[in-house]
């Protein structure tokens, strides 16, 4: 039955969730949350900018208009002023004429002026009055003086219609006239309504008086008639109206051709084409009369300027209206400016929009990436889980296999084989773990553990792992009897403590890698592993070798007859060759006898120096500096001939450096290589290693003090291992069963040890021969350290709930095997009944998938019940303070498919764990 707790999976899934939450929390920026508004915003922007542009255009246009108006008004005023001036000049001339008439007609007696004189004078002075088409003088005649007047002049006073005038109070017949208008002579100016009014006004005020405009008779131009009074006598300084009327002698009039006047005037000024000028008589403000210009001429009515005109007649009001000929031209400057402004705004808007869109896109991408990252991390987690599970899956059956291996009574050969198989299996498990380690090293997450371990056992294991390999290799490679395989030997200095604290697995990995390499590349000669304290590396010269058998410890078995071990092959590093080794051994023995000051060393770490020497093909000089680079082998033919990926040494280097040491090598091509490294271990205090489980095969210490002689025919091999008589152990490399039978029949040997010698195998062998029975020690290891479990479960009541009867029985059987008292129930309901408080169950295993009430549903009421009871208990604490603790039955879920969801569900239902049951 495979039981597995799924703790690690859970942690990983939590990590992944954490990442997801991080992913969703970030990224909600202002822009992101308002992204739907973006098109509306850009539209709004364009509209606002459009409005602003229009406004600016309006403003500029208005400025233009104001300027235009100013120009117009100044032009208009100028024209009005000039017109006024010219007009007043004409008026003054008429005034002068009036004074002339007064002076020469009335003040002289007899009169100095007659029609002829007047006509001539006016004709000759006409250049002074270019605007007056003609002047005429009408005398005031009262009705009583009409007859006298008519008689004097010889004609009758005529009205405008050229018939004799009707009777009136007074008349104003023309007596003098310029020749240009001589046709109006003898007409009574009082007969026309308008003229009469003019005359009355003029004599009352004494000023020039104008008529409303009318078409002049000759030119058909628009004109006005100017009337000036002529007084008989000098007036007092401030005459009243009556005085003026009385003093009036006649009236001087002239027609002013306003049209020509204005025409002339305008012709003199620049910008004439640009503006239209109209002159109106606005005495009657509701009905302005045109004096100049066409009323319905086209033109720009938008800008109009009115200027007042004062022609000197207080009763009449005149006005000049100016406007532009053409409509205000479109202001291209303003338009261009505004257009550019709008375009710039559009561009700015576009840029902003683009930036925001880009931000949104980047954020989207970012989120997507984050999602992908989460997914990738999940995939990574899955990969890690795969890496974590698959070796686990391999290891589980391996454990079963290994547990069964040594389960029965075996002969020593079988036991040796079985132990080798077991050790190989364990090494295989270790290698599987190393697969994960490699990934860990690459991720830089490798952590070293600190456990006590026996250095010698490690070397023993590694040696046994490779002895098989090297043996097979030896047979395959060469038929040469003497050199058919490399010898494999380990020496561990006595000064090296038995137990040290450190990372057993990593240390074994380093050794395995180095020895593995050596075995791989060595076809003859020896592979020699030497371990000693770094402090005692200096060999002592000139020490004579007397005895080589180190009887004091088990390792003596390995290094016995050391002087003869040398296989006749040179090693790369002379320092490590057997000669110096010999000295070293003796040296150490000597030192060993002397009291060593070990007390202060206890606190410090131990620096071990390990060297692995082989007589293999060596490393070519050119690649020696690249040896520790990953995936590097001497050349491609190397991997073809010897296999491997070339990553081993790089891992080894990493590991050694992690363990606080360093690694180096000396190699000579075709001679051999020696790899040396140092590691630092902690000293192991006795207490800590007594506590720990001894998983390694212990080497019994019962042989201490026994003397043994090793006899080997061949130099370099220890064949024949003679113990205290009569126990004889045959050492053999490869021995068939037939040969074994033969040997046994000859009474030669009690048992046979397969070579190479290993401490553990020798020990097992000796146990068998000497009857020191190890009572199936290994067998107890069955089912994953069951003694521990047995101790844990013995006598405990455990409830198993499963509707599957067969399953239930098997599970119960397994638990019973560990001494537990098992109760079984088929359903959640039945289990509930049994778990009523107070209950005495040590634990409860519950299937998740059950009909009616499944494991989750069943757990809930149990937990409810417990928490209630706990509350009550805590409430009643005062009375019963002795009883402490809480009700809590550990409930473990059983399921065939443990996936995260299930495990999480279990925890959610307040179960205590999850067990994968097959």
């Amino acid at each position: 039955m495979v039981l597995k707790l799924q703790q690690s999976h859970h942690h990983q899934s939590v990590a992944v969730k954490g990442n997801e939450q991080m992913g969703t929390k970030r990224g909600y920026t202002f822009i992101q949350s308002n992204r739907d508004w973006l098109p509306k915003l850009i539209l709004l922007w364009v509209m606002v900018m459009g409005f602003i542009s229009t406004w600016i255009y309006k403003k500029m246009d208005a400025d233009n208009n104001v300027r235009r108006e100013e120009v117009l008004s100044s032009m208009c005023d100028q024209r009005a002023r000039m017109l006024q001036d010219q007009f007043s000049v004409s008026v003054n001339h008429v005034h002068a004429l009036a004074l002339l008439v007064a002076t020469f007609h009335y003040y002289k007696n007899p009169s100095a002026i007659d029609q002829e004189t007047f006509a001539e004078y006016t004709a000759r002075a006409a250049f002074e009055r270019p605007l007056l088409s003609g002047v005429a003088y009408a005398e005031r005649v009262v009705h009583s003086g009409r007859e006298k007047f008519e008689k004097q002049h010889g004609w009758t006073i005529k009205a405008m219609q050229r018939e004799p005038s009707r009777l009136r109070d007074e008349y104003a017949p023309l007596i003098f006239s310029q020749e240009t208008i001589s046709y109006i002579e003898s007409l009574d100016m009082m007969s026309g309504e308008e003229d009469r009014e003019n005359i009355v006004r003029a004599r009352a005020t004494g000023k020039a008086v104008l008529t409303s405009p009318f078409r002049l008779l000759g030119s058909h131009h628009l004109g006005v008639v100017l009337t000036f009074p002529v007084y008989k006598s000098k007036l007092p300084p401030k005459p009243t109206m009556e005085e003026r009327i009385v003093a009036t002698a006649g009236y001087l009039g002239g027609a002013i051709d306003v049209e020509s006047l204005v025409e002339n005037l305008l012709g003199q000024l620049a910008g004439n084409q640009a503006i239209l000028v109209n002159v109106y008589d606005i005495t009657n403000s509701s009905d302005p009369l045109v004096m100049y210009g066409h009323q319905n001429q086209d033109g720009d009515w938008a800008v109009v300027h009115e200027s007042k005109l004062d022609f000197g007649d207080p009763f009449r009001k005149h006005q000049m209206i100016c406007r532009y000929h053409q409509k205000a031209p479109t202001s291209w400057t303003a338009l261009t400016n505004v257009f550019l402004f709008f375009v710039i705004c559009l561009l700015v808007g576009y840029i902003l929009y683009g930036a925001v869109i880009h931000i949104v896109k980047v954020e989207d991408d970012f989120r997507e990436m984050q999602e992908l990252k989460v997914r990738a991390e999940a995939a990574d987690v899955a990969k890690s889980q795969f890496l974590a599970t698959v070796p686990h899956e391999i290891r589980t059956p391996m454990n079963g296999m290994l547990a069964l291996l040594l389960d029965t009574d075996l002969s020593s050969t079988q036991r040796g084989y079985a132990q080798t198989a077991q050790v190989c299996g364990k090494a295989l498990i270790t290698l599987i773990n190393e697969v994960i380690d490699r990934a860990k090293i690459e991720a830089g997450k490798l952590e070293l553990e600190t456990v006590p371990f026996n250095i010698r056992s490690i070397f023993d294991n590694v040696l046994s792992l490779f002895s098989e390999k090297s043996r097979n290799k030896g047979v395959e490679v060469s038929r040469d009897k003497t050199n058919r395989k490399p010898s494999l030997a380990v020496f561990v200095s006595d000064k090296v403590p038995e137990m040290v604290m450190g990372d057993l697995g990593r240390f074994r990995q380093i050794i395995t890698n180095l020895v593995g390499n050596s075995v791989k590349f060595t076809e003859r000669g020896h592979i020699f592993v030497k371990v000693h304290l770094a402090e005692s590396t200096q060999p002592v010269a000139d020490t004579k070798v007397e005895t080589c058998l180190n009887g004091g410890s088990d390792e003596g078995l390995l290094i016995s007859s050391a002087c003869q071990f040398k296989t006749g092959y040179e090693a790369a590093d002379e320092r490590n060759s057997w000669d110096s080794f010999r000295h070293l051994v003796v040296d150490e023995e000597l030192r060993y006898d002397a009291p060593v000051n070990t007390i202060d060393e206890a606190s410090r770490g131990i620096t071990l120096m390990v060297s692995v020497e082989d007589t293999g093909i060596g490393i070519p000089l050119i690649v020696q500096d690249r040896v520790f680079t990953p995936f590097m082998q001497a050349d491609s033919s190397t991997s073809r001939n010897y296999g491997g990926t070339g990553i081993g040494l790089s891992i080894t280097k990493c590991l050694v450096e992690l363990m606080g040491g360093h690694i180096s090598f000396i190699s000579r091509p075709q001679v051999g290589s020696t790899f040396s490294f140092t590691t630092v271990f902690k000293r192991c205090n006795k207490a800590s290693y007594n506590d720990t489980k001894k998983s390694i095969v212990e080497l019994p210490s019962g042989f201490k003090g026994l003397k043994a002689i090793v006899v080997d025919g061949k130099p370099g091999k220890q064949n024949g291992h003679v113990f205290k008589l009569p126990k004889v152990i045959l050492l053999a490399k490869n021995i068939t069963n037939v040969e074994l039978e033969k040997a046994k029949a000859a009474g030669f040997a009690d048992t046979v040890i397969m070579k190479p010698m290993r401490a553990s195998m020798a020990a097992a062998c000796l146990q068998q021969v000497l009857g020191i029975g190890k009572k199936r020690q290994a067998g107890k290891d069955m089912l994953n350290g069951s003694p521990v479990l047995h101790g844990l479960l013995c006598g405990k009541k455990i409830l198993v709930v499963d509707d599957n009867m067969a399953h239930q029985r098997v599970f119960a059987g397994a638990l019973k095997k560990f001494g537990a008292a098992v109760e079984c129930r088929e359903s959640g309901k039945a289990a509930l009944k049994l778990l009523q408080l107070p209950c005495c169950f040590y634990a409860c295993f519950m299937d998740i998938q059950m009909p009616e009430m499944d494991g989750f549903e069943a757990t809930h009421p149990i937990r409810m019940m417990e928490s209630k009871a706990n509350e009550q208990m805590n409430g009643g604490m005062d009375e019963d303070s002795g009883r402490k603790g809480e009700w809590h039955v550990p409930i473990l879920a059983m399921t065939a498919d443990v996936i995260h969801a299930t495990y999480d569900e279990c925890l959610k239902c307040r179960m205590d764990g999850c067990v994968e049951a097959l």
Partner: protein
Amino acid sequence: MEVGQMQRRLVDYTKSLFMEGFLDAQFLQLQQLQDESNPDFVVEVVSLFFDDSEKLLNDLTMALDQPNVDFKKVDAHVHQLKGSSSSIGAQRVKNACIAFRSFCEEQNIDATLRCLQQVKQEYYLVKNKLETMLRLEQQIVAAGGSIPMIELGF
């Protein structure tokens, strides 16, 4: 028959069961759970398995006979059967159940019917084999021998 001969036959037969994949490591564990305090453990569990399986197979046949197949129910039955078979280590039945369940998920009636036949066949095969084996064991016990422990490097 001689006891030793019978023992050897039992061992060979059992081995063949493992070789042909009828049983897996679980059955070995089952056997290890049997000891003096619980001498009939294997027989007990195996007969439980038989009863359980017969019932489940009947239920399955009925369920798949319906005009409207309730795949949830079928799946639950197959899950049960898978649990039972894996707990005694009847590997081939278990594997057939796994295939069955995947077709249940697809709701493929034809395939599930085929699977049912397959499961039935595997079940009767393993039942036959187990019965033969148990009979052999009983004979050995009856003849006064002990049941040899089977060691297998699987």
